[in-house]
């Protein structure tokens, strides 16, 4: 499954780093500006879809294998639940933010404890969901 098209290939080669950077920006600036795990993960996943559309799914398989994305999909969700259980283990409610995670100074990049970490987990999960979905829809030539 591949576009044999020079325009798509060239444009993808130029624009793909910016797509990935924008996706990571959306995830890591979640507590400072609009964005979040869902939107950022979707952008990163779409970047991978564009990559495998223009260079072929077997090239994408070398960068991020089918099995790895399926594993990331599960561990993103497990990270979320684990962070929630940390609150229970230290004697607070499920998914507690303030006493369990240090809040930091509002406005800094590394602040707001649970909000940032949970959104990273969500971003991993959403991105790998889209990649796994695309791979399993168009990946019959994988094995």
């Amino acid at each position, binding site marked *: 499954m591949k576009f044999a098209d020079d325009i798509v290939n060239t444009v993808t080669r130029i624009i793909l780093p910016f797509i990935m950077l924008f996706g990571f920006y959306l995830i890591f600036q*979640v*507590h*400072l*500006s*609009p*964005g*979040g*795990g*869902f939107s950022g993960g979707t952008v990163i996943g779409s970047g991978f879809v564009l990559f495998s559309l223009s260079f072929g799914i077997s090239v994408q398989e070398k960068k991020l294998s089918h099995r790895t994305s*399926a594993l990331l*999909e*599960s561990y*993103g*969700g497990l990270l*979320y*639940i684990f962070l*929630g259980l940390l609150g229970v283990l230290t004697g607070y409610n*499920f*998914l507690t*933010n*303030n006493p369990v995670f240090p*809040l*930091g*100074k*509002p*406005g800094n990049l590394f*602040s*707001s*404890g*649970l*909000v940032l970490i*949970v*959104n990273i987990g*969500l971003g991993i*999960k*959403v991105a790998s*969901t889209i990649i*796994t*979905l695309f791979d*399993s*829809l168009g990946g*019959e030539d994988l*094995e």
Partner: protein
Amino acid sequence: MKQTIAIFLLVLIGIGLLNIISEMPKFGEKGNPAQNEIYERYTEKSQKETGSLNMVSAIITDYRAFDTLGEATVLFATIAAIYATLMSAVAHKKRDNNRNKKHGDDQ
């Protein structure tokens, strides 16, 4: 005849729904049920309580984090269902191919 009954029922349902909408509180009016103490708590205290300047992400991943966990579970269920459906089809195809090959060898 069937069509007439269907249209009549649809018009009836539509009138009922429009009646319900006309009973709803006006948008943005003071004293609406949505304007309670919750939004005051969010607008005044969310930065202090969560350390997040973005109020929307403070709500969805701190105050309503359990809700978002459900959302992530929906994603997981979707991908599990797609995987089960499509990958079983691929496995069937592979098995059929293998069987055909074997059969060909026998002949």
